[in-house]
Structure formats: structure tokens, C-alpha cells
């Protein structure tokens, strides 16, 4: 058993660092909501843009055309913002998955390599760790 009294300085530093830690509010971590909002904005923006064109074309009234142009521009702006949100949150998820996949593949490769590696210590300074060189053949 570990009966000797424990030194406290590390514990004190630990508590101090934790006291300064900023903990994010879980309510703000709503990536899925932002992703859906981005998709929705993109779709609504495109629809508004498409609707505004026949609206502006179907009238000679310059005031009505101005309104239609405003709707169209608003739609385009919404689509741009929505696309940015959608890309931001979908790319995060994709990259996270991709990194996990890369790490898994590397581990598999490592296991395969270690089954063929020698079990004796490698010489000092060997940059290849015993793995045969695979330099390109001379032309």
C-alpha cells in the first residue's frame, strides 16, 4: 500500500490550472444544429434566387422589380452563408472520420511491419529501423 504522506505542490498547481480552465457550455456545442441550419439556408436561398428572377421579369413596374431584385440578392446572400456553415460543420465531421481512418490504417500497417521485423536491438542511428530500403532502381 502507498502509506507515505503525499506531497501537495503538484495537487495545488493542478487545482490552480483547473480553476483557470474555461469550460465550454454544452448548450453552445450544437454542431448538428448549425449543420442543419446551413443546409436549410442554402436551400431557401437558392429557391428565393430562382423565384426572384421570374418575379422581376413578369412586371414592368420598376418598384416591383426592385422588390424582386432585393429578394433575389437576399436569397443569394442566404445561400452563401448557408453554404459556408454547411461546409464548416460537414468538413469537421469528415476530417475527424478521415483522421481516425488514417490512424487505424497506420496501426494495421505497423502491426504488419512488426511481424516481419527482427527482435534483436537495432544498431544506433539506423534511420530505417531495420526495414529494407526501397530506393528506386537505377535507370
Amino acid at each position: 500500500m502507498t502509506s507515505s504522506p503525499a506531497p501537495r505542490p503538484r495537487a495545488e498547481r493542478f487545482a490552480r490550472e483547473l480553476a483557470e480552465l474555461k469550460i465550454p457550455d454544452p448548450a453552445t456545442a450544437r454542431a448538428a444544429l448549425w449543420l442543419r441550419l446551413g443546409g436549410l439556408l442554402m436551400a431557401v436561398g437558392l429557391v428565393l434566387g430562382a423565384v426572384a428572377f421570374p418575379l422581376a421579369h413578369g412586371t414592368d413596374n420598376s418598384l416591383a422589380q426592385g422588390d424582386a431584385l432585393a429578394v433575389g440578392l437576399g436569397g443569394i446572400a442566404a445561400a452563401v452563408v448557408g453554404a459556408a456553415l454547411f461546409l464548416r460543420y460537414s468538413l469537421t465531421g469528415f476530417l475527424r472520420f478521415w483522421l481516425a481512418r488514417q490512424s487505424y490504417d497506420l496501426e494495421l500497417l505497423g502491426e504488419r511491419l512488426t511481424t516481419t521485423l527482427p527482435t534483436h536491438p537495432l544498431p544506433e542511428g539506423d534511420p530505417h529501423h531495420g526495414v529494407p530500403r526501397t530506393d528506386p532502381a537505377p535507370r
Partner: protein
Amino acid sequence: MGAVGGPLLELSGVRAAYDGITVLHGVDLTVDAGQVVALLGPNGAGKTTTLNVASGVHPPSGGRLLLGGRDVSGARAGDLARAGVCLIPEGRGVFPNLSVRDNLWMMTFTGRAREEIEDAAYARFPVLGDRRTQAAGTLSGGEQQMLALARGLTTDPAVLLLDELSMGLAPLVVADLYERVADIAREGVAVLIVEQFAAAVLKIADHAAVLARGRIPWQGPPDRSLHAELSSYYLGSAP
């Protein structure tokens, strides 16, 4: 500022779930600085989930996680690791195709120099010094576990969480490893060890808790009454 005089790690009524299925139903556990606490229980009891909650890897669905007296439920695992929480997961997590030295050098992200990291690791585990150029995957299981511990210790942890340290190792190797863990605890580190095989860890534990079906039905000093409790939970005779 947290209550420094209190426990370094405290789980209070912690609940955790995967996809709506609750696996921890209100776990209460404390670990003081310099103390070794063994969390024992059969397969599927929720031991690894408890460690994952304690390290911030898995968010609790209820209850509180307190570190150094501060409620850190919902904090990111990376932030907790930077503050001094170190989780050594089951399966060691070393890079098998890199040498021992390269594995240690991976920890230079902590801001410590390569030489400093190597010197500290070899001083604590001399066998790693003898094998510094050997690929980690060719080390024995015990040596790989030492390498995982050495890497974890470069983060200067205040709380060390160990998951199934004895997995796949011979009893003598396990006993040696646990002696080293006891040394680490004597330096003031709060150590929480999850184990399925109780015999070795109870030799160094100051406190033990039995986890069964996501609850802690018994906890106390590791004495004879614990062995009776463990038998009933492992063999399924407990209610």
C-alpha cells in the same frame, strides 16, 4: 480556486450512456493525492466508461466530475490532459513500428526537451534505456506497458488513470509494474486503476471499489470482506 485539501478526483452521482443506453447509474468515487484506488468488477460493469468520464473522453449524462475541487463536467479531454489528467488506455497505445526512443520523442509536444524526456523515462524504467533503438512492437508486453507509462508520465500528471494494466501479462511482470505504480503514487499522484484481475492491484491499493452493472455496491479498504464481495459479483451470486 478548488479545494486543494480535498480529493483530486471526485465522481459524484455520475451517469453515462451510449446512444441512450445508460451504463453508469450514479457512480460515487474519490481519489486523493498520493492514493491508489482500485476499481474492480466483471466484464461489462462500466469500468472503462468510468475512466473515460473521469478523463473527459466521454461526457457524463448526469452527476458531476470534480477535479481539484472544481466541477469540470463537460470540459474537453484535451484541456483536462493539459491540466494534468493522464489516461493510459487498455492496449497500451504505443506506436509499434517506431523505436522506443521515437515513441518517447512523440511526447515533445508537451514542451519538454527530447533528452529530458528520455532521461526521466530511462531513470524510472532502465530496461527502456537498454532497448531505446528497438521497435516498440517487438518489446515484451510488460516493456510496452512500461513505455506507455513512461510516455504518460512525461505529461507530469496529477491524476493517473490506468485501464487494465495487467492485460495479457505474466503475474510477475504485473507485480513489478504495480510496484512502479505505487512509486508514482508516493510522489503525490492520484492513481485510479481499473482492473478485472484483483489480486495484484490490491497489494498496492489504499482503497478499493467494486463496480457491477454500472453501480458501486461496495467500497472500502482492500481487506478480507472485499474478497467475499468480489467473489459474489464475479460469480454472479450477488443480487
